[in-house]
């Protein structure tokens, strides 16, 4: 589903990813772990198409097609979703309306009929249960004045609504207490299917107690230095990043 080949990318002439390769198949959950500055967030932004990042070498393929050169919205419409580490607050824009706009953009792209506000409301109420969100949230402005946990839950709500083929969760666990973490992880687990895939980026092993990965990769200085199964994350937790030669 996702194939990253020898990716070199950076921002403002600063190289960050230096030969990153990864292959994710449908139904798989991959965890990418690594210390701060190793390039975890850069990877997520490059795959989602953030125009601030520059790819200097390599390629990113999604379902066999190169993503490079596609606008972020084109990638989203193909079925890629990025749950942001720092979701953006949009005062004045109603959460439900925003979700419906995004949902309908997706439906239009797929040649389906757009959902009217009433239909969508019903659909959204179902999705709210996935992330155990209070219906009151959907009538507030997008992320505006939300707590850290509420913002992350709102990201998972968006994911539930947009039903992506590939979801990248960028440090979705950061800033969450254990209860919020559990709720977010349960939401994510409910969205796991044999025909979709997830890349879970995290600094800590903690999240992987709840979202159990098929594969774990350790990222250091812009490339994967070690890959393994879920036991690698536990080993990392015990021994620290030093054991893979990373400071």
């Amino acid at each position, binding site marked *: 589903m996702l194939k990253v080949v020898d990716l070199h990318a950076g921002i403002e002439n600063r190289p960050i990813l230096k030969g990153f390769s990864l292959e994710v198949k449908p139904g798989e959950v991959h965890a990418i772990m690594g210390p701060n500055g190793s390039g975890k967030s850069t990877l997520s932004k490059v795959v989602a198409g953030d125009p601030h990042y520059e790819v200097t070498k390599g390629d990113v393929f999604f379902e066999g097609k190169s993503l490079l050169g596609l606008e972020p919205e084109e990638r989203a419409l193909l079925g890629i979703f990025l749950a942001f580490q720092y979701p953006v607050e949009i005062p*004045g824009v109603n959460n439900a309306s925003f979700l419906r706009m995004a949902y309908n953009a997706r439906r239009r792209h797929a040649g389906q009929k757009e959902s009217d506000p009433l239909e969508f409301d019903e659909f959204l109420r179902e999705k709210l249960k996935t992330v155990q969100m209070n219906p009151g949230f959907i009538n507030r402005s997008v992320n505006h004045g939300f707590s850290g946990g509420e913002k992350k839950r709102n990201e998972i709500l968006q994911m539930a609504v947009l039903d992506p083929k590939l979801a990248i969760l960028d440090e979705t666990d950061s800033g969450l207490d254990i209860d919020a973490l559990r709720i977010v992880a349960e939401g994510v687990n409910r969205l796991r299917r044999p025909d979709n895939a997830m890349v879970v980026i995290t600094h800590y092993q903690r999240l992987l107690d709840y979202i159990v990965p098929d594969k774990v990769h350790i990222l250091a200085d812009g490339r994967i230095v070690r890959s393994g199964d879920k036991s690698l994350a536990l080993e990392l937790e015990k021994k620290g990043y030093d054991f893979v030669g990373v400071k």
Partner: protein
Amino acid sequence: MSRPPVESTPYRDVFREYAPASGAPAWREASRLAAFHRFHALGWPTRALEAWRRVDLAALDAVYSTPCEDCLESVDKKMLELYFLPHAESNRLVFVNGIYSSKFSQVKDVPEGAVVRDLPAAMKEREAIARPLLSFDEAESDAFAALNAFSFTDGALIHVPDGVEVKTPVHLLFVSVGHEDLPPAIYPRVVVSLGRGAKASVVANHVELTKDEHLTVSAADLRLGPDSKLDYTHVQRSEGSGTHFSSIRARLDERSTFDATSFTHGGALNRLDARVRFQGAGAAASLNGLTLLDGVSQSFVDAEADHAVPGCTSRQFFKSVLAGRARSEFSSLVHVRRGAEKSDSRQLNRNLILSAGAQAVTKPELKIFADDVQCAHGATVGQLQKEELFYLRSRGLSESVAKFVLTYGFAEEIVETIGDAELRGQLEALVRARLEDLVGGEDADRVVA
């Protein structure tokens, strides 16, 4: 009501000599005289004054006509209906070029004891109430506010006695129309007085039905008794080249609540001078404002909260969206006087610049002479944030839609504070239509607030 002939005199020179208003009662003439003296003591503003340094005062050199009775004939219901507010249908006062139109007005939903009248009628028939409310505040420091106090002949008076609530909002619709050869100069005045525990909601809706030049010097004098609550919305919408000097004065007694929103769109020059004076402890005032400008429109907001007594809360939240070569300036002062402990204030000004030629100046200031206060202020001037755009695009929205949504949301954060749903809907439609022109967004209709 007459005034010296102005048909050939530049506006600057019209007020050199004092002239009594014919037909005004003696008590009104006394307050006119006081205002005239104050106006002269203050003098016309000049660009030497910091607050007026960037204000183009060319409109003062033009020649204007006096308010015209016959203008009333130049509007019909169809032109006005677009701006009517169904919720306030039964309490609507319409003014055409500053003159009250009984034909288009109706006041049917006023509780016992309350007064909602046009000023000429109130002065004549309710002198005991009108007289103190039309007395001139000699401490007035804005020349245009003094000029309105001297020049007004018409406007609205709203008086709500102790413990009474006027449930139906009062809609004051001031429309301006073109007037023969000369542009008109008009002086709308709004007076609101709330007794102890009284409540009211007032919309002062200034709409230009002409693209021609004209000059509006409006003033609102709002007095909130103890524990009273006033919602006040000031709208200035213009498609043309009008010049508007507006002043709002609110005096708040103990534990009263004042929620005000101003909305400004278009026009050649808009200046809003809004001052809140806390006279009793524990009162709260919130002033929100949105300015939406393009072309060569200019807007100046001068806001002040005077914390003269302890335990009051003031909020100022002003935003501007600027395109073309528009200019906006926000000056704001929160003044916490000696003894005004536990004052709590916030000033926030955000400016969104949509074009290279637009310009915003922001100057929130604090003067604090008391201890144990909480005062915060902030200001931003900038373009849409790239992170915000990427966030929306990553959800499948096109770049133009993402820009539209962010810009609309920026404006909507203020518009959504307007209490009257119908007015809010009208202004949202206006913002949406303008932003579609300015930033595009082919799916704009899908953004519902």
